[in-house]
């Protein structure tokens, strides 16, 4: 199977700052999380863009839908590289690990950090949920939906 690049530019995820800019107060973490939340929304948009492109391409009728190899090839060759640069954000992983190490228990000693650290925890949960869901949902649901559409329309499963 010939694999083509997606006709969209998905961009890459900029790293989170480490150390944080500012005067070392809780507001500094809030400011960083605000930027990170914007980036998370952009990641979701990128994921939707990837999904839309998969759907468009398989609806062209040139892709065999009921073959596991086809799906695996699509994932490995088209989706995975995009996830690596545009969504998985390896640069985030390192800084988030440092954030967790430094901030998680800080409110126990310095209660003024409780609000920002709660936001950090909620952000991490959102980010991890997005990561977890992408691998499971990007290919199969799109392929299955197209398969159902073709079945309903009496069309062949492959081109």
């Amino acid at each position, binding site marked *: 199977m010939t694999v083509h690049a997606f006709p969209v530019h998905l961009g890459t995820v900029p790293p989170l700052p480490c*150390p*944080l800019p500012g005067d070392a107060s809780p507001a500094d973490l809030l400011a960083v999380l605000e930027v990170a939340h914007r980036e998370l929304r952009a990641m979701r948009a990128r994921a939707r863009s990837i999904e839309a492109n998969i759907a468009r391409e398989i609806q062209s009728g040139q892709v065999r839908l009921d073959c596991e190899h086809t799906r695996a090839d699509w994932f490995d060759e088209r989706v995975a590289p995009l996830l690596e640069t545009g969504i998985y954000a390896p640069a985030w992983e390192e800084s988030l690990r440092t954030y967790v190490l430094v901030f998680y228990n*800080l409110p126990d000693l310095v209660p003024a950090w409780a609000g920002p650290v709660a936001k950090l925890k909620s952000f991490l949960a959102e980010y991890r949920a997005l990561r977890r869901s992408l691998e499971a949902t990007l290919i199969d649901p799109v392929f299955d939906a197209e398969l159902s559409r073709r079945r309903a329309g009496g069309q062949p499963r492959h081109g």
Partner: protein
Amino acid sequence: MNIRTFQPSPASLPATLAGDGSPASLTAALDMAQIQLGAIQSVSSHAYGRMILDVQATGMDLTQEATRDKWHNQFLRPQWERADVILTRLVQYQDQLEHLPAILPAWSAAIGRLEHLVAQVGNLMLELERRTDEIFDAEVDRRRAAGLPFCGGEDAE
């Protein structure tokens, strides 16, 4: 035996740091710790002097461990316990804040001061632990040199 006891006010540092969460939150607690450490040092110096005077004035057996322990517990142990309260809390601060400068460099100075205070309190506690023996040993040497009895009324050799 006339043992005078010291009843200093108990030491305490807050379990949580008040303030806006900036390094000033820690600095305020360290200021408090510094004042309490100063008070312990002051009371300890006074206790050393009183212990020296009392040891010189009495005819106790200076070689008995039980005697030394009794005097240590009366004069210096309370100061050691106050210092221990402070040290325990400072170490708790240290455990929770030690990684902070990696991500918030502005905390470095306050955490450096915290580490310095931990060392200071630790040194004071070591000093308190050994000071009774030093005072008793010095008095034994003094009496021996002067040909005075130092061992429960027996004459020195």
